[in-house]
Every structure is written in structure tokens, then in C-alpha cells.
């Protein structure tokens, strides 16, 4: 008797639970409210920006009662890619993502992106008019096969940061920063302080951690006259080349020959910390760190172009806004409204002042707040000026693994475990292997 009563109770519980579940599932379909969209974003510089992002999205929601956007924090740039891909594969694509600019090609190859041409056309603007708002250097990472796939949101270039006070101490003139690798090596030697065998102040610090390391290698290779990858085709990288060998050899020499750069692969935050604390007199770092340096440096600093060996050239960094493939029309339209609003001159100028990234929208620099800001902080101009010599950020099929193929080897070199030449040969071999399936499908597939 007891048993059957228990069974009855269990059945009653189960059926009421099922009813509740069914009710919960039915509600969203019936409710007529604002279109709900989510925006995936990585935190670019510092935790406080997560709060700034909240402010930005709240402002958008207040101005657009028919849309309810939620900002979803998604980790680092690499984590954001993993999460976006997993969400797309699970059938729950986010409506918009702030995606590292160089992941767009790989996502397009995998059919994970919405082609934005139709949305641009529906607004009554041409592609040329739309792209014309942004700095030309940024278009390489946003346009694939002449179609628009991304909208530049916050972008960066690497910069040379100099501790002006320390430069003056050793008789260097910070108003004439080093322009070539030879001058930079000379500066770094003069700025390195030793007590016996122990170094108390390093001449220069260059970051090398996943993501950053590949970007710095591209920077050095480009200013050495070379290229990192085929800008027009996603199946080729040029790791084992003279320009790359020269770049890595110079970096290696700074560490082991001139002993002006601390040995080992140093992550970005450690580099900026050591510059701010005076432990390193110069550093190469993103303009995205400029606001942090401005707020924390207790000394005069100076930012300059990345010095050249052969030519002045730097890669673009930062992120673009994308719309994943497979969204329903209503969400797609709402996401497009959000993207246009976020990349408008006023909003991108505001974000630029908060972060240090430069605003990709050229009209941002004509807003009164920005003119005023640049007058007070002339150091924010350097990255914009450097855009004249900027080129796209490396983007290939399977960008992250191909980048790691090189980064693993560069780290071995900086840790003193390998010589540049053998490291680059190994990196090339590994990358060719990673790119093989794509090449088999495209460039090696003959009729």
C-alpha cells in the first residue's frame, strides 16, 4: 500500500514538473516584446572596461526600445573564438561578436559569417560609401573576396614606448626617438644598467605570449621588408624566409648577444608592468595599452613608430564586429542596428578615449570631444599617423593553430633552447602540415 502511494506521489510530481517545463518553453514563443540579441565581447585592456561596455550597451538599449541587447563577456580573443564557434555548432549563434580582426578569414572559409553586403545595400548605401568611413588600412581584415564580413570597432598598431626621463639620464634625446633597428639597439645598450653580472634595468622589453608573440613577429618581419603570410590566399605562410630569419635573429641577439632584453618569453602584462615600474626603459606594445600607461606612469614617456630595418611597416591589431551565420532575420537586423550604432563616430570616439585603441571611423577624429582630447594627449596621435604604413593582420585558414606553430618555436628561441634558423624551419614544417587540408581543397586541387 505504502509503495503504491509513493508511486502515485512520484507520478504526480513528474507530471506537474512536465507541465511546468512545457509552460516555461511555451512562454517565449507567445510573448511579443523587444527583439533580444546578445553581443559577445572579450575584455581588451583592463577589467574596468567590462563596466564601460555595460554602460555602452545600456545607453543603446535606452535609445532603442524595440531591441534588448545583452553584453556577454567571453574571455580572451582566442576564448571568444572558441565560444562563438561552439555556440554556432550547438545551434545557438550569438547575434553579434567583437572578434579579433584576423579570425574573419578563417570563419568565412568555414561559412560561419554573415555576408554584410545585403544589409549595407538595404540601407541605401554602397559598399564603397560604407567602407569609406574607415581608415583604408583596416579594410584588408574586413573585406574578403570583395564582400564585407566585418565592421572595424577598435583597432591598434604596435608602438615603441620610451621612458623619456631614463633616456635623458644617459644623454639620449627622447624628442628624436630611434628610427632604425641599429639606433634602437644602440639605445637599448645605453639604457641597460648592470651591477656586475646582474641587470638592474633592461633596455627594451618585447612581449611574447600566445596571440601577442605572433603579432610581434609579424611586426618585426614587416619592418624587415618581409611578409608573414599570403595576404590574398589563406593557405600560405612564409616562416622560413630571410626577412623572418633576420627578424628573429635580431630579437635573439637583443637577448643573448647584446643582453639588453630579458631572456625568456614574457607575456604582455609583465612587459607593461616592468615598463611602468622602471625595470625596462623601452617596450614594444599595442596602442591599446596607452590609456593604462598614461594613467600609471610616474615619469615622462614618449611613444614612437616601430623602428625599421628595411622599411616602416606595422600590422593592424584589434577587433571587428561580426554577425555569425544562421541567425533569423529579425535578430540579424537588430544586430546590424547595434553594430552601426557602436561604430558611429561618437561611440567609437568614446570607446577610443576609454581604452587607448584608435577609433576606426575617421569622422571620430572630427568630433569636438576627440579634437579636445588629442590636444591634451598628443601621444594618442602616433598610432593614427602610423596607419599610413599599416597593413592587414595575418589571417589564414586555421589562424590560431598556424600562429601557434610559429609562437611555440619563437618561445623556444627566446628561452635559449633553439637557434632562429632551426626554429623557423620547424615552424614552417608544422604550419604547412596545418594548412595541408585547405591547400588540398584549393590550390593543390587541379582539374
Amino acid at each position: 500500500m505504502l509503495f503504491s502511494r509513493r508511486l502515485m506521489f512520484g507520478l504526480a510530481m513528474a507530471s506537474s514538473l512536465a507541465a511546468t517545463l512545457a509552460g516555461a518553453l511555451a512562454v517565449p514563443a507567445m510573448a511579443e516584446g523587444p527583439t533580444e540579441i546578445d553581443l559577445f565581447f572579450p575584455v581588451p585592456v583592463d577589467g574596468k572596461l567590462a563596466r564601460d561596455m555595460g554602460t555602452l550597451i545600456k545607453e543603446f538599449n535606452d535609445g532603442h526600445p524595440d531591441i534588448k541587447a545583452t553584453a556577454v563577456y567571453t574571455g580572451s580573443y582566442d576564448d571568444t573564438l572558441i565560444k562563438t564557434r561552439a555556440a554556432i555548432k550547438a545551434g545557438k549563434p550569438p547575434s553579434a561578436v567583437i572578434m579579433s580582426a584576423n579570425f574573419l578569414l578563417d570563419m568565412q572559409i568555414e561559412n560561419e559569417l554573415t555576408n554584410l553586403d545585403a544589409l549595407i545595400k538595404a540601407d541605401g548605401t554602397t559598399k564603397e560609401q560604407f567602407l569609406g568611413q574607415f581608415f583604408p588600412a583596416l579594410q584588408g581584415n574586413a573585406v574578403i573576396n570583395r564582400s564585407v564580413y566585418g565592421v572595424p570597432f577598435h583597432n591598434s598598431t604596435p608602438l615603441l614606448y620610451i621612458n623619456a626621463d631614463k633616456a635623458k639620464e644617459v644623454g639620449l634625446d627622447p624628442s628624436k626617438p630611434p628610427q632604425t633597428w641599429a639606433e634602437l639597439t644602440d639605445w637599448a645598450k645605453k639604457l641597460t644598467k648592470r651591477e656586475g653580472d646582474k641587470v638592474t634595468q633592461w633596455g627594451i622589453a618585447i612581449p611574447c605570449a600566445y596571440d601577442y608573440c605572433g603579432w610581434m613577429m609579424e611586426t618585426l618581419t614587416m619592418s624587415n621588408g618581409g611578409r608573414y603570410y599570403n595576404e590574398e590566399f589563406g593557405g600560405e605562410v612564409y616562416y622560413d624566409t630571410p626577412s623572418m630569419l633576420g627578424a628573429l635573429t635580431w630579437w635573439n641577439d637583443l637577448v643573448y648577444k647584446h643582453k639588453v632584453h630579458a631572456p625568456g618569453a614574457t607575456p604582455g602584462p609583465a612587459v607593461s608592468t616592468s615598463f611602468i615600474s622602471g625595470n625596462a626603459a623601452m617596450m614594444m606594445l599595442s596602442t591599446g595599452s596607452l590609456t593604462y600607461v598614461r594613467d600609471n606612469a610616474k615619469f615622462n614617456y614618449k611613444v614612437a613608430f616601430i623602428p625599421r630595418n628595411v622599411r616602416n611597416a606595422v600590422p593592424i591589431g584589434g577587433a571587428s564586429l561580426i554577425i555569425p551565420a544562421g541567425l533569423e532575420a529579425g535578430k540579424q537586423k537588430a544586430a546590424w542596428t547595434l553594430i552601426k550604432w557602436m561604430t558611429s563616430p561618437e561611440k567609437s570616439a568614446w570607446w577610443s578615449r576609454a581604452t587607448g585603441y584608435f577609433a576606426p571611423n575617421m569622422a571620430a577624429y572630427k568630433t569636438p570631444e576627440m579634437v579636445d582630447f588629442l590636444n591634451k594627449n598628443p601621444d594618442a596621435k602616433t598610432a593614427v599617423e602610423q596607419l599610413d604604413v599599416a597593413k592587414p593582420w595575418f589571417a589564414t585558414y586555421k589562424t590560431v593553430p598556424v600562429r601557434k606553430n610559429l609562437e611555440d618555436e619563437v618561445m623556444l628561441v627566446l628561452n635559449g633552447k633553439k637557434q632562429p634558423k632551426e626554429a623557423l624551419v620547424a615552424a614552417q614544417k608544422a604550419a604547412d602540415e596545418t594548412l595541408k587540408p585547405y591547400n588540398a581543397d584549393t590550390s593543390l586541387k587541379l582539374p
Partner: protein
Amino acid sequence: MKLIDWLYKDTPLATRGEITPKLGFLLTVLLAIVWLIPFLWMVVATLRPASDGINAMAELMPSLKPTLDNVRDAWEIGDFPRYTLNTTIICAGILLVQFVTITLAGFAFARLDFAGKSLIFYLFLMQLMLVPVLLIVPNLSLVARLGLYDTLAGVMMPFFASAFGTFLMRQAFEAIPTELEDAALIDGASLIQRIRHIYVPLSMPSFSAFAIISVTSHWNDFLWPLMVINSPDKRPLTVGLSVFTKTAEGTQAWGTIAAGTLMVIAPLLITFLIFQKRFISSFVTSGIK
């Protein structure tokens, strides 16, 4: 010679070849100090005012004018009480279901006879060799199809069965003499009653050891909750904390990070301090078996 004499003074002759209690104690203290340094640094960095400058950040000497600014900053950026609640729900939920599944599965592998038992057991153990990252996409699409995307239940689900736990319980149950079960059988105890009144009480140390491992690993898990959870109010502590620590282009507010980290580990740390004796004894006994 005097030092050695002192170290060996009250050791029985038979164990003189082994590490003496005093030397062992010395080594323990040394290890404890090494372990304590990063923790002390975190506390010092949390209380250090930003005006001390980043230079002082690496120092272990506490600041003369301690401040709670960093704690306030971290507190404002992240909704820590909510994150702690979410993490607690996740860890407790996983553990409760695991207790049921590993007890039953462990018992089946230890005491029941069925065809292909060893083969199934080894297949089961192979799960331990898989890197969790490998399963992210299949797990996520399953979770989404079950309607559990962006829910705490979705975070917990893949961990309801544990290969490690099953293995641990199988070992524990096998060590229990079958005579005890036979006696219960004579008294007419059902299968569930035998598990409930004989196997479970006698394997308590193994259960607590497993609980510690399960809770700490899910407390620290980052990638899987990041994949499943979208809503800010469902974030667990690790995802909430990474808002400070995962930077893309190279700057960090160490004071805030230290304060945030301290808040994240505090609940686990306090639990450990309270139940210290139990924790240690559970590992020791389960180790002897």
C-alpha cells in the same frame, strides 16, 4: 655531529635510517613557507594602495597605509555574492548526483557479475584519458538540444558520471569483507539496503576524498562554464574573475586582480581551515587502502 645527534636523540633504533620526525617537521615548515609566499603576496597586494606605485607591487612588505580600495573596485566590477552562489550550486549539484552514480556504478563493478565486466570497466576508465576540451562541441550541442544552454544545469550535466569516482569507489568497496554483506543477506537485506547500510558507511573516507577533488576541480573550471553561460547573473566565480585577468593587449591592474582572487578562493580556504583535520584524515585512510 651534534646536529645529527640532536635529530636522532629520541628516535627508536629501528627507524634511524629513515627521515626523523624533526627533520620531517623542518621540511614541512619549509614547504609551507614556499607555499605561503604567493598567498601572502596576494593579501599584501590586495591591501596596497595604488599610490604606492606599481614598483611596490612586487614587494612582500605590507604597505604602511593599507586600503580597501582594491577590494571595493573588485566588488563593484563583479557581482561576487551572485558568482559565489552560482559556483556553490554548480559544485553541490554535481557532487550530489555524482554520489549516487559513483556509488551504484562502483558497486556494480566491485560486486556484481555480468558479461564483459572487465571490458566495460576499462572502457569506462578510458574516459580519464580524454582531454575535456575535446568534448566541448559535442557536449554543447547536446546541452543545447536538451534546452539547457545558458542554464546552471547545463554546466553540471556532463560531470554527473565520473570515471575517477567510480574507480575510487570500486577500490573502496572491494576492500570491504564480503562476510559483512553475507550476514546482511541472511538477515534479509535488499540490495539497496546492503549498499546503504554496509558499503556506504564503511567507505566514508573515500567519499570525502572524492568530494574534495570534485569540488575543487569544478570550483576552478573555467572553459566549460564560459561556453555554456551567457547571462551575466549565471556566471560562476572563475568566469567572473577572468574579467580582470584575461587581457588581450598587455596591461593589468594587479591590486584588483589580487583582491578578486582572494574573494574567489576565500570560501574554499575557510572551509579547509574549519574541516582541516577531517580532510587530511580522509586522504590518509583512503590512501592506506
